[in-house]
């Protein structure tokens, strides 16, 4: 069946091909560095028809023969207008220059930058890296993920929390792709900073809903990050020195008009902050991160192009030479773009991704040990964009993933290895974007995914397979290499996706979407925020794949010649088979994780409001989300329930989430920025009583997430000084100054509950009494200034 499907997919272009029209195709590039631009509007005025460039900057539009004025439009760039006499298939590539009219309040050249209204896509957040760089940031560190959380529907558990949450989904429900390679941990320093070095990033796009059929494997979102290709015109260096880290990027042509490269590195020096402490338990520690981004591309000819890109990042932490801990991602992507014809663009990708953590004592320690865990996966995928005509586009493709999960191996004074786990995840997809008429556009598609957990593995069989218990083991099955342990396929693997756009008029539209997505791997983490030592584990005998149904509708409206974009979106999500954990679950170095987990359901719903201005002296956005995110674990018996089987708020449930982000260009050299954020405090579990166990006062918790920390709010300010570049002088630099948490609010990072000795002079714990108290921990309790010097030459 799979073979037949593949054959059909490859033959589709032939079946549907039409010879009555001509095709205009090509690439859109940045004139300053030759980088392909993603999402450039290609608009044919005479026909009111258009297309946009794909993820590789390629466009194709098939039109009747004729003479046309074709506009190439991209926010922040001068519109290019080409007169095309279309009497045959033509390849026209254009170069767009950055707009010199940024300071005008209304940018006259971009009158049709109205994708917000006209595109069938909804629930999409797209941020330009230059825009991100102007947002005031903690310690001046440009942070893509933190900036994304200022948009509607994207939030975190709190400052310094690993990962982020999209529309009520858990942190492991986000598919984070860096040049198509999945990244398993997007944070450095336990969540304070993201792993993406903004200097090396070209484009960031987030799908919160209406997820296209080409993406799968996670329930709640896709974050598609594309690295720069490298300047194909000249050698360039840019970098910066900040309070937290320094960075340097080098890029340039390898062979003129054929090949270019980009290498970027970043290294933090958080160790310096630790050294400022008087406490020897703190000041002799080592803590830093580094990352390295790399990309090379090579044009084999007009129709073929190769890309090789990679990322390697590590966090390193050492306590007084006693204990070491490091973790990080490594990814490699090899991609081949091939044009089968002007209408059929294809991309074949091979990806290797690896997330590893390791902790232990120094090797020369007499009782040394090292625990290592990792997840590795290999992807092979092909994607095809077939541009039938100006009204229809087909996207289709396939993907195969091979996973190797290595939950743990201890070496040193003893050698123990938990069993590896293996799985295969094949999938196929097809989608069709059809402009039914001038008002109605439909994007519908189907993804079919399946998942096969395979050997070798010893699988334990329990008395009650619905509730495995360590002491109720009845058998062990021995599966050999590639033996099928458990398969998930059939109709459950169908993932329909549909989005509809009804254009009310040129300024406004109504959109709706539905998607069903499946997730076969699960982050095993029962902490409020995931930690670097949490690992993904596959679905299998005892863990079912998770599924979500998402329904979204929205109203989109642009004002003042598209200077202002506004949108309101409503969403509802139903989650099935979410993994939760039994009380006191022990998850680290646990081979038989099935004895620690429970299965639950979830629901999330909300309304998102966004008002955005992307051009003129004043730019920025105002975002507000009103939402709920709830979970329910209602097993057959009390020990399989949480909160007696009732709905309870998830850790990331925040009723109100409001952000305002503004940047104002004061002069040609100076611009100023401000953020303000207000959020409902996150839920925590507070004790409702206490009892005494020997010398210990033990809090009683009888309701999960029954209390909330105080609401969060914060303002940040910054000023950027960017002197004019002097003609003929290569080196130039700019400065950013700012203050994070301007009015020094002591926002609660957490409230925790502790017992303290009633009489500190009593040294015998058996005669000591303990008092109980609540403590608010604020991690940024003061205003934090920053300064960053950026340079390039």
């Amino acid at each position, binding site marked *: 069946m799979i073979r037949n499907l593949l054959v059909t997919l490859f033959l589709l272009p032939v079946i549907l091909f039409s010879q009555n029209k001509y095709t205009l195709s090509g690439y859109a590039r940045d004139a300053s560095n030759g980088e392909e631009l993603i999402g450039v509007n290609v608009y044919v005025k005479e026909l009111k028809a258009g297309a946009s460039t794909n993820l590789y900057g390629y466009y194709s539009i098939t039109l009747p023969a004729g003479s046309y004025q074709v506009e190439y439009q991209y926010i922040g760039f001068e519109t290019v207008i080409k007169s095309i006499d279309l009497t045959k298939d033509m390849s026209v590539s254009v170069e767009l220059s950055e707009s010199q009219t940024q300071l005008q309040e209304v940018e006259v050249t971009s009158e049709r930058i109205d994708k917000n209204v006209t595109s069938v896509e909804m629930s999409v957040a797209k941020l330009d890296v230059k825009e991100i760089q102007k947002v005031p940031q903690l310690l001046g560190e440009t942070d893509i993920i933190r900036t994304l959380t200022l948009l509607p529907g994207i939030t975190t558990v709190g400052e310094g929390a690993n990962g982020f949450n999209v529309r009520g989904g858990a942190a492991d429900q986000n598919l984070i792709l860096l040049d198509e390679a999945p990244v398993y941990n997007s944070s450095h320093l336990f969540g304070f900073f993201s792993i993406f070095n903004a200097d090396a990033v070209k484009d960031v796009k987030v799908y919160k809903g209406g997820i296209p059929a080409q993406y799968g494997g996670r329930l709640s979102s896709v974050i598609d990050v594309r690295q720069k290709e490298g300047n194909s015109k000249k050698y360039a260096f840019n970098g910066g020195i900040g309070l937290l880290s320094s960075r340097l990027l080098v890029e340039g042509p390898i062979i003129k008009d054929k090949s270019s490269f980009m290498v970027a590195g970043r290294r933090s020096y958080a160790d310096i902050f630790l050294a*400022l402490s008087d406490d020897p338990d703190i000041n002799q*520690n080592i803590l830093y991160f580094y990352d390295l981004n790399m990309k090379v591309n090579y044009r084999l000819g007009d129709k073929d192009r190769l890309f090789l890109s990679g990322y390697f990042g590590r966090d390193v932490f050492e306590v007084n030479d006693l204990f070491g801990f490091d973790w990080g991602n490594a990814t490699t992507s090899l991609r081949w773009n091939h044009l089968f014809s002007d209408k059929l663009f294809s991309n074949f990708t091979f990806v290797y991704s690896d997330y590893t953590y390791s902790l232990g004592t120094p090797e020369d320690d007499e009782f040394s040990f090292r625990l290592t865990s990792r997840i590795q996966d290999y992807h092979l995928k092909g994607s095809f964009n077939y541009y039938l005509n100006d009204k229809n586009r087909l996207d289709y493709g396939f993907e195969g993933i091979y996973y190797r999960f290595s939950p743990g191996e201890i070496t040193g004074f003893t050698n123990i290895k938990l069993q590896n786990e293996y799985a295969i995840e094949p999938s196929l997809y097809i989608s069709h974007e059809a402009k039914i008429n001038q008002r109605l556009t439909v994007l519908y598609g189907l993804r079919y995914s399946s998942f096969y957990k395979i050997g070798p593995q010893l699988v334990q069989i329990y008395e009650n397979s619905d509730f495995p218990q360590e002491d109720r083991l009845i058998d062990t099955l021995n599966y050999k290499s590639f033996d099928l342990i458990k398969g998930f396929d059939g109709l459950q693997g169908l993932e329909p996706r549909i989005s509809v756009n009804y254009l009310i008029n040129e300024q406004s539209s109504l959109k709706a979407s539905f998607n069903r997505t499946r997730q076969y791997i699960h982050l095993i983490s029962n902490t409020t925020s995931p930690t670097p030592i949490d690992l993904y584990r596959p679905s299998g005998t005892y863990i079912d794949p998770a599924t979500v149904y998402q329904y979204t509708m929205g109203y989109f409206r642009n004002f003042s010649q598209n200077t202002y974009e506004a949108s309101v979106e409503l969403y509802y999500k139903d989650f099935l088979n979410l993994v939760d954990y039994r009380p006191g679950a022990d998850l680290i170095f646990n081979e038989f994780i099935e004895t620690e987990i429970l299965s639950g359901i979830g629901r999330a719903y909300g309304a998102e409001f966004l008002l955005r201005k992307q051009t003129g002296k004043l730019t920025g956005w105002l975002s507000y989300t009103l939402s709920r995110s709830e979970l329910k674990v209602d097993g057959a018996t009390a020990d399989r329930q949480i909160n007696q089987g009732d709905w309870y708020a998830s*850790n990331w449930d925040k009723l109100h989430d409001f952000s305002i982000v503004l940047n104002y260009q004061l002069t040609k050299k100076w611009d100023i920025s401000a953020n303000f954020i207000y959020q409902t405090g996150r839920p925590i579990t507070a004790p409702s009583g206490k009892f005494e166990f020997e010398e210990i006062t033990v809090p009683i*918790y009888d309701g999960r997430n029954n209390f909330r920390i105080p609401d969060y709010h914060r303002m940040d300010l910054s000023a950027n000084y960017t002197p004019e570049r002097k003609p003929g002088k290569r080196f130039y630099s700019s400065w950013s100054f700012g203050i994070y948490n301007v009015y020094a609010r002591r926002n609660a990072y957490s409230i925790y509950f502790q017992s303290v000795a009633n009489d500190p002079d009593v040294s*015998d714990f058996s005669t000591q009494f303990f008092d109980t108290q609540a403590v608010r*921990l604020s991690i940024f309790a003061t205003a934090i200034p920053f300064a960053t010097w950026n340079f390039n030459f």
Partner: protein
Amino acid sequence: MKKLILYIITGFLILTSCQDVVTIDVPNSSIGINIVGRVTDSADTYVTVSVTAGYFDQGQTPRIENATVFLYENGSRVSELLPDSLAGLYSTNFRGSIGNSYEIEVQIPAGNPNFEQSTWRSFPETMNRVLRFDSSNVRSLNRNTSPQVFTEGDYALVYFQEPLGKGDNYRFRLWENDSLVTNDITVFFDDVIDGEYFGGDVIPAFDYFGPFDNNGDSATLEVSSLTREYREYLELIAQLAFQVGSTFDPPPAPVTGNIYNVDNPQQSGYGYFTASAVDMITTRYTE
């Protein structure tokens, strides 16, 4: 690990973080019974009977002083525990034996000011074998670390054989000159160290205390055997009692011990009655 992460966070943010004691209003749950005790093979058997209190109520939780407490061995009553000098404490000089199972029954009469009339019983606990200490000594230690963080000095070392055969669970407690050093819970099981000798060529002796300060000081180490259920209970108690408040903590869990209401078995108490074999060793420091 969680403490470690919090140290890093607060250490990294040493200039910006702060902690304030705050007053918050949380609803109190209904009052529950709390029965804690143990029978051993080498010391008196005791049980403490108390009730729960509001989290922010200060001082000791209320005690039940007029209960009747019986001990059962392999299902037969073998002793009554009588009120001790401390309020709510009941004891007997009965000693248990390895391999036998033990239960208690606590009867609370009508008219008790702190709790309603009721009868509570524990689920049977088997007294498991325990590792036995061979010997101990004092040795000067200076772990070679850079920078040096261990205090150079004289440490108490203990030598022992962990019995062959997996499934043993242990708890350690430590006294310095007859004062309990900490209320931390230290438990472990023998998955990794099954049948190993501590103090041989492969695994060094366990340095359980040090450095000593004064001539004549003593350090006493107790090891007791546990059932797997009791070890898990202790781990949960430790997790709840010593949460550090970071987002890297797991969600707090409800506690269920091995005590149940005889008339309503669905109703559980908070404590645990355990049966443990015990070994102790004392090292006295002489310069």
